[in-house]
């Protein structure tokens, strides 16, 4: 009899499930892909239903359901913090109590009822333990130092763990606790720079490249690095520990000046734009400095040349690269769902290896664990929508994609199983020719509808990566998942203009045939035609939407943007007025029909 374990992360942001069969991940997905609500935090009901159906089992077949954190420990932190911050936490206390007493405190019962699992089959990991497990237990390492860095879990905001070859594979060593948090510091600065928390952090990272870290003196007062390898924040400049909605105080405004108003256009050539870029650069540099400080401490305490990183901060590709370049570790591993979505995966793996004490054999990790669509179902859906499509043959289809790309087209690429985590790694991607800045501007403005300063990532075959990029050897793992950056070789920067950031860096994805065979084949075919096995690769979604998960989502993106074509498996789908067809005019009132006003697209 196989042992089935379902890992669940939920109720804060990015809820997800991961299903294990005898320790092997058979399915993992975020709820947002099913509900189409970005960062959906609700219990991942539909993702779980899909995962069980994918495995062909019923809820009663589950041996364990593992929640990714311990609710009582988290509640205790909120209570104790509210008392410690009396009286200024008077606004956050009622809100927190309403939320916790109304629901979150009783999550065990809700999990049991929702997923039809008896209470005796419920297990609870710790938040940072889940992160640590999601990193180490998917890594190729026998042993490692594990750093988990995010906003806050139960109490910890930063965790240091020892990854061992035998159970317990994840051993806690030390932690930094709330309210001192590098993740919350970065989020507060994200809010200060006028971006949405839990969403705009990537924008701060992108904006940083346009500026200089001229505010480092101020930043070092905000985040003081301690002699013992930890850090202390100036808690009078921040208020996440006592304010229900804000994260920084007038003290921060006094130090850095007026915050940027959300939605203000960012032009790095203006004085104002330069000022914001300088703050972003200083924030990024401070984060990197603090992470390096923490990593050096980790190296002193743990005798391993390997470092595993997880938690939301581990999605900061630039900081990961700095750790590789200046840090004390020889190898670094970050898996692509390093945020809370990966907590579901980590919780399940932790239960298998550390609670049930099953041995572990480090091996390759492939993140294509989500939903896929068989050709017939996809064809039926496309047929129903009357979307113009061609079914291409095995021999010709890649050449056709290359035709589109070489002709300046921007295509949606919908192949195989969806990726877990926020990165599109060649299963649900928007692809374009990386040559020329015009492509970047077009994709930003007319397809993704996002800010013009944001860079795009290149995907390159593993065989050609060294030709175009300088990749630090410690980052061989992370660059497979687009969670580290590389330097574009100076002689290729002009050629790769669409994917080279202003500082000459690129968040490269190195594609191996064993990770993503179709995507690798496409890159190879593009290289054979153009001499450049590199493509612009960005996530297949429009602004504000989760990454597409169904052929219908993919078509909705096609019809709502300037995409030229979408490849659903071997179907090439294009836009056409046929979808809205003349037959629909019959539904309009006569006066509108007579006025010749067909519903506008």
């Amino acid at each position, binding site marked *: 009899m196989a042992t089935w374990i379902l890992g669940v992360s939920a109720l804060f942001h990015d809820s997800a499930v991961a299903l294990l069969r005898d320790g092997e991940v058979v399915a993992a997905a975020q709820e947002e892909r099913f509900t189409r609500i970005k960062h959906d935090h609700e219990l991942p009901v539909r993702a779980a239903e899909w995962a069980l159906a994918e495995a062909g089992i019923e809820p009663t077949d589950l041996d364990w359901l593992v929640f990714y954190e311990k609710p009582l420990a988290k509640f205790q932190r909120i209570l104790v913090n509210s008392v410690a911050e009396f009286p200024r936490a008077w606004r956050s*206390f009622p809100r927190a*109590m309403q939320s916790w007493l109304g629901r979150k405190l009783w999550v065990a019962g809700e999990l049991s009822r929702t997923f039809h699992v008896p209470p005796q089959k419920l297990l609870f990991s710790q938040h940072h333990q889940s992160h640590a497990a999601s990193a180490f237990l998917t890594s190729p390492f026998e042993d490692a130092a594990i750093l988990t860095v995010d906003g806050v879990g139960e109490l910890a905001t930063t965790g240091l763990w020892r990854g061992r070859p035998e159970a317990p594979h994840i051993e806690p060593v030390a932690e930094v606790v709330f309210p001192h948090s590098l993740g919350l510091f970065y989020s507060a600065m994200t809010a200060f720079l006028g971006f949405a928390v839990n969403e705009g952090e990537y924008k701060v990272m992108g904006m940083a490249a346009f500026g200089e870290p001229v505010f480092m003196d101020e930043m070092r007062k905000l985040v003081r690095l301690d002699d013992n390898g930890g850090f202390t924040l100036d808690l009078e400049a921040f208020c996440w520990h006592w304010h229900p909605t804000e994260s920084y105080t007038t003290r921060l405004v006094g130090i850095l000046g007026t915050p940027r108003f959300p939605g203000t256009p960012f032009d790095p050539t203006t004085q104002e734009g330069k000022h914001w870029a300088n703050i972003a650069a200083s924030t990024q540099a401070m984060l990197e400095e603090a992470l390096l400080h923490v990593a050096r401490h980790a190296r002193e305490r743990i005798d391993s040349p390997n470092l595993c990183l997880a938690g939301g901060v581990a999605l900061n590709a630039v900081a990961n690269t700095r750790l590789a370049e200046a840090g004390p570790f020889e190898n670094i591993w970050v898996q692509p769902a390093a945020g809370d979505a990966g907590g579901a995966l980590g919780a399940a793996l932790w239960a298998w290896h550390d609670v049930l004490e099953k041995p572990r054999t480090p091996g390759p990790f492939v993140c294509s664990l989500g939903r896929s669509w068989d050709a017939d179902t996809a064809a039926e859906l496309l047929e129903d929508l009357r979307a113009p499509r061609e079914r291409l043959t095995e021999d010709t289809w890649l050449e056709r994609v290359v035709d589109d790309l070489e002709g300046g087209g921007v295509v949606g690429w919908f192949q195989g199983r969806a990726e877990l985590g926020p990165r599109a790694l060649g299963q649900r991607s928007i692809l374009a020719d990386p040559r020329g800045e015009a492509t970047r501007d077009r994709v930003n403005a007319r397809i993704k509808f996002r800010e013009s300063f944001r860079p795009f990532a290149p995907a390159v075959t593993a065989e050609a990566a060294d030709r175009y990029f300088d990749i630090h050897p410690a980052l061989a793992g992370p660059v497979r998942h687009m969670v580290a950056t590389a330097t574009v070789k100076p002689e290729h920067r002009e050629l790769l203009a669409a994917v080279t950031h202003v500082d000459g860096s690129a968040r490269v994805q190195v594609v191996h045939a064993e990770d993503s065979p179709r995507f690798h084949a496409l890159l190879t075919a593009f290289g054979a035609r153009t001499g450049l096995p590199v493509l612009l690769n960005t996530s297949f979604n429009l602004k504000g939407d989760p990454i597409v998960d169904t052929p219908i989502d993919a078509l909705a993106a096609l*019809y709502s943007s300037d995409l030229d074509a979408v490849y659903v498996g071997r179907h090439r789908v294009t836009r056409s007025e046929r979808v809205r067809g003349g037959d629909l005019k019959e539904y309009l009132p006569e006066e509108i029909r007579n006025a010749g006003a067909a519903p506008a697209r």
Partner: protein
Amino acid sequence: MGRPRRTWLKLVSPLAWSRKDSEQRFLASFSETERGSSVDMLAACELTERRDLRRKYFIHALDEARHSRMFARRAKEFGARQSRARAALDDANTLQTHGIVMGRPLFERYGELEFLAFVCRSEAMAVEQFGVYRELDFLDDKTNVMLDNILRDEHFHVGYSRTELERYTRQGRGAEVTWAQRKVFWRRPWEAWMRFSLRVGHVVTGIWMTLLYVLVVAPFKLGARREAAGWRAVKPDPRSRMAAARGQG
């Protein structure tokens, strides 16, 4: 919908829109509503077993997404200073106006027929509301042009959903259609009442919790202190691994 709602809209709308910052507030709220509708319609498109309806749901979803972008763009042109407006226009997840409850989309909870009745009524109400705005002509030209564009689409949404309901009636399912329409009609005031009750409950518990904080929690402040900064060692859990894993704290 009928005359009372129309009369009410005629009376209230100019007043409501004359308030400071009302343009961006309303337009941003419309943007969020339309975006939520788009999510509901996409789910219907995926879940329906009626292949002839799938394309209509799809077009409807595209329309709603486009309306959402139009409203958002116009709201931004007005400045969008209000926090709700600001949030709705940002690309973060602020989407709350949608029909998904515990992962169940509106379509799955209602079923095809009731979903169509819901679409028909909601869209007819939108036609009425935007129609009143146009009739009274109190908005600026640019917003009016946008509303005209949107109204055309809304007419299509009403048209196809009504036609489908009529088709069901012709198929001898008139009683089901009437029942679905009644349910949809009464669900709106019921949900409004539930929302109101929830809000009242929220305010009341908020007051109680604030009192609790001030009167009961205060003395504990004497013994409480903030956690120290810097690294601290983690003590090993004395429980067995399974016992520790079963614990919630």
